[in-house]
C-alpha cells in the first residue's frame, strides 16, 4: 500500500482567491436555509396571521431548539467527514434515564444532569475511538452505538416510560420568561439554543480546532501531513455531537415529557438539517448558522403542513422531498462553481 501524496501544487499566490471563494460559498450555503426558512414562515403567516406575533415565533423556536442543538453537534461530525447515527438513541437514553433516576426528587436534578453529560462523553469517546482506532466506518460504528444505547434505554426502562422528571429538570424545556420588552415572551429553551449555538459557532469558525476539523474533513491525509492530530480532532467531533445530544434530550424531556421513543429518527433529521443548511456530506464544509436554520426550516415545514391539515404521515414524505431538493440544489451549484 503506497501512501498517496496529496497535491501540494497550490501556491500561496492562488490561496487568497480560493479562501475568498470558500467564504463566498459558505455564505451562499447559509443563505439557502435562511431564504427557505423565511419563505416557509412567510407562507405560514399568510395562512395564519397570528404567527406574525413574536410569541408564536418564540414557541416555534422553543419546539425546534432540541433539533437545532442536535444539528449543531451533528455538524461537527459531518464536517469531519462522518455521521453520528447514535445521537437520536442518546436523546432517548437521556430522557429515559433522567426520569428513572430522578423519580421526581428535585435534589437529584443536578447530579443526574452531570451524570448524563459524563455518559454522553463516554459515548462520544467510544464512537470516536471506534472510528479512529478500530477504523470502523462511522456509519457502522455509530449504528452499533445506536443499537447499544437504544437497547440500554429500553433495558433499563423495561420498554415503557417509568419514573418522573423533577420540575427543576423540566425547567429548561418548559420555562418561559414573560414580559420581556420587544419579544413579549422568551422561552428558556431559546436562550439555551442561542448560547449553545454561539458556543458551537465559536468552536467551529473561531478556533484553531475548528480550522483543523475542516482540514480533516476536506482531506485527512493532507491534514495529517500538515501536522493536524487527525485522530484527536475526529474524536472531539464525536464528543461534541454526543454532548449536544444530551443537551437536546434535557430540553426535549422538559417540554415533551418522558417517552421511550423520544429521540426516534432525530439523528436523521439532524443530518438533514445540516445538509439543508449547506453542509457537505463527507466533510469539509458547513456552518453552524446554516445547521440551525436548517433545523428551523424543517420545523417551519412541519408547522406549515400541520396548518394545511396534511396527515401527519405525509410530513415524512415532504421531508424526504425537501431533503433531496436541498442536496440537488447544492450538487448543481457545485457543478456550476467548477
Amino acid at each position, binding site marked *: *500500500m503506497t501512501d498517496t501524496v496529496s497535491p501540494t501544487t497550490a501556491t500561496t499566490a492562488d490561496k487568497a482567491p480560493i479562501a475568498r471563494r470558500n467564504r463566498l460559498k459558505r455564505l451562499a450555503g447559509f443563505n439557502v436555509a435562511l431564504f427557505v426558512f423565511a419563505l416557509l414562515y412567510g407562507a405560514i403567516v399568510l395562512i395564519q396571521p397570528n404567527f406574525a406575533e413574536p410569541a408564536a415565533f418564540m414557541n416555534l423556536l422553543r419546539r425546534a431548539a432540541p433539533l437545532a442543538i442536535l444539528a449543531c453537534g451533528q455538524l461537527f461530525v459531518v464536517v469531519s467527514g462522518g455521521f453520528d447515527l447514535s445521537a437520536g438513541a442518546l436523546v432517548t437514553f437521556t430522557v429515559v434515564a433522567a426520569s428513572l433516576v430522578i423519580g421526581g426528587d428535585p435534589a437529584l436534578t443536578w447530579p443526574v444532569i452531570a451524570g448524563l453529560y459524563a455518559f454522553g462523553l463516554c459515548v462520544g469517546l467510544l464512537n470516536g475511538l471506534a472510528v479512529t482506532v478500530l477504523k470502523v466506518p462511522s456509519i*457502522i*460504528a455509530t449504528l452499533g452505538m445506536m*443499537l*447499544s444505547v437504544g437497547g440500554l434505554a429500553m433495558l433499563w426502562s423495561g420498554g415503557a416510560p417509568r419514573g418522573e422528571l423533577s420540575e427543576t429538570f423540566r425547567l429548561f424545556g418548559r420555562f418561559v420568561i414573560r414580559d420581556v420588552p420587544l419579544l413579549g415572551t422568551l422561552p428558556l429553551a431559546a436562550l439555551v439554543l442561542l448560547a449553545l449555538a454561539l458556543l458551537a459557532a465559536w468552536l467551529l469558525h473561531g478556533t484553531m480546532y475548528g480550522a483543523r476539523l475542516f482540514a480533516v474533513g476536506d482531506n485527512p491525509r493532507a491534514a495529517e501531513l500538515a501536522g493536524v492530530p487527525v485522530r484527536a480532532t475526529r474524536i472531539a467531533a464525536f464528543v461534541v455531537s454526543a454532548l449536544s445530544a444530551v443537551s437536546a434530550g434535557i430540553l426535549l424531556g422538559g417540554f415533551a415529557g418522558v417517552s421511550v421513543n423520544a429521540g426516534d429518527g432525530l439523528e436523521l433529521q439532524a443530518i438533514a438539517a445540516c445538509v439543508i443548511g449547506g453542509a457537505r456530506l463527507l466533510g469539509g464544509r458547513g456552518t453552524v448558522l446554516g445547521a440551525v436554520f436548517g433545523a428551523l426550516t424543517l420545523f417551519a415545514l412541519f408547522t406549515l403542513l400541520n396548518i394545511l391539515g396534511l396527515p401527519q*404521515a405525509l410530513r415524512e414524505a415532504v421531508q424526504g422531498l425537501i431533503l433531496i431538493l436541498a442536496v440537488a440544489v447544492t450538487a448543481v451549484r457545485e457543478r456550476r462553481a467548477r
Partner: protein
Amino acid sequence: MTLAAPLPAGRTGRARRPRLPVPALLTLVSLLLYAGTALWTGQASALSFEGIVGLLQRMIALGFVALGQTFTILVGSIDLSVANLVSLVAVLASYLMAGDPAMIAPAVMAALGVALLVGLLNGLLVARAGINPLIATLGTGLMLQGVLSASYEHLRGSVPPAFQTLAYGSVAGLPVALPALLAVAFAAYALLRFTRLGAHVYAVGGNAAGARMAGIATERVTLFAHLAASLGAGLTGLYLAARLSSGTPWIGRDGAYDLESIAVVVIGGTLLAGGRGGVWGTMAGVLFFASLDACFTMAGVDAFLKQVLRGAIVVAAVAVYTIRTKGHVA
C-alpha cells in the same frame, strides 16, 4: 486512493499460510457459535435437521434485501430506502391480491414493478443528479414511508392461502423460500463473477473515475445496482407478506432492514467504499446474524439486552477487517 488494506493483509512473502476465505471463516464461526450455544444450554434438538432448518429459515427475510444491498455497496453507493420499500411491496402485494388466488401473479408482477421503479428513481438521483446516495435514498425512503402510512387505510388486504406456501410450504423438508434464496444468491454470484456487467460493478466501485476513463458507462452500472437493491427489497417484501398473511407499513422499519442489510454486507467482508467483496460474504453475514439471534433465543437473553450486545458485536465484527486499515477512515 487506497481506502483500506486488502483483506488478507497483503503478506505475500514466503511465510504464506493458507487462509480460509472470509465467507467460509464467517460461516464456520457462526455454526460453531450456534452449536456451542445449543450444547451449552442443553438444547440438543437445535442440532437436529429441523433445528438447522429453523436456523436457516431465519436468514430468508434479511437474505434477499442483503443480496440486493451487496450490489449498491459494491459500486460504492448505498440504499437506505430498502426498509420502507419492503413495507410498500408487502402492503401493495396483499392489497392487490385481496385474498384472491387468481391475482397472485399480477400482484407479484405489479409489486416488483413498483420496486423496480423505486430503484430506477434512486439510481437516477444518485447516478444522474449526482446526489449523495445516503441522502437520495434516505429521501426516497421517507417519501415512500409517508405515502404508505397516509394511504394505508385504503390499502388493507391479505394474501390468499396459496401465496402463503411461499413462507410455509416445504420442498423435500426444506421451506420453499430457502432454495429460492439460494437460487437468487447463485444468480447474483454468477452475474458478478461471470458477466461483463459484474466486472463493471467491481470496476466502478473500485475506482469510478478510472472506470469511466476505461469506457465503462458508470452511470448505468450504478443505476443497475440500485435496481438490484430494490428487487432484493421487493422479494423480502413478498416473503414477509406471505409469512404474515398481510403487509403493514411498519414491517420493514421494525425489521430495520436498511441498517441490518448494510451491516451484514460489511460484516461479510464487502468494503463499504465499494469495489471489493461479494455475494457469499453477504450470505455468511446473514447466517452470522441468524445464528446470533438463535443463540440469544436459546440462552434466553432479554430482547433489549440482545440489542445492546448486537450493537457491540456489529462494531467488533467490522473492526476485525478494518483495524489493519492504513490511513484514515471517516
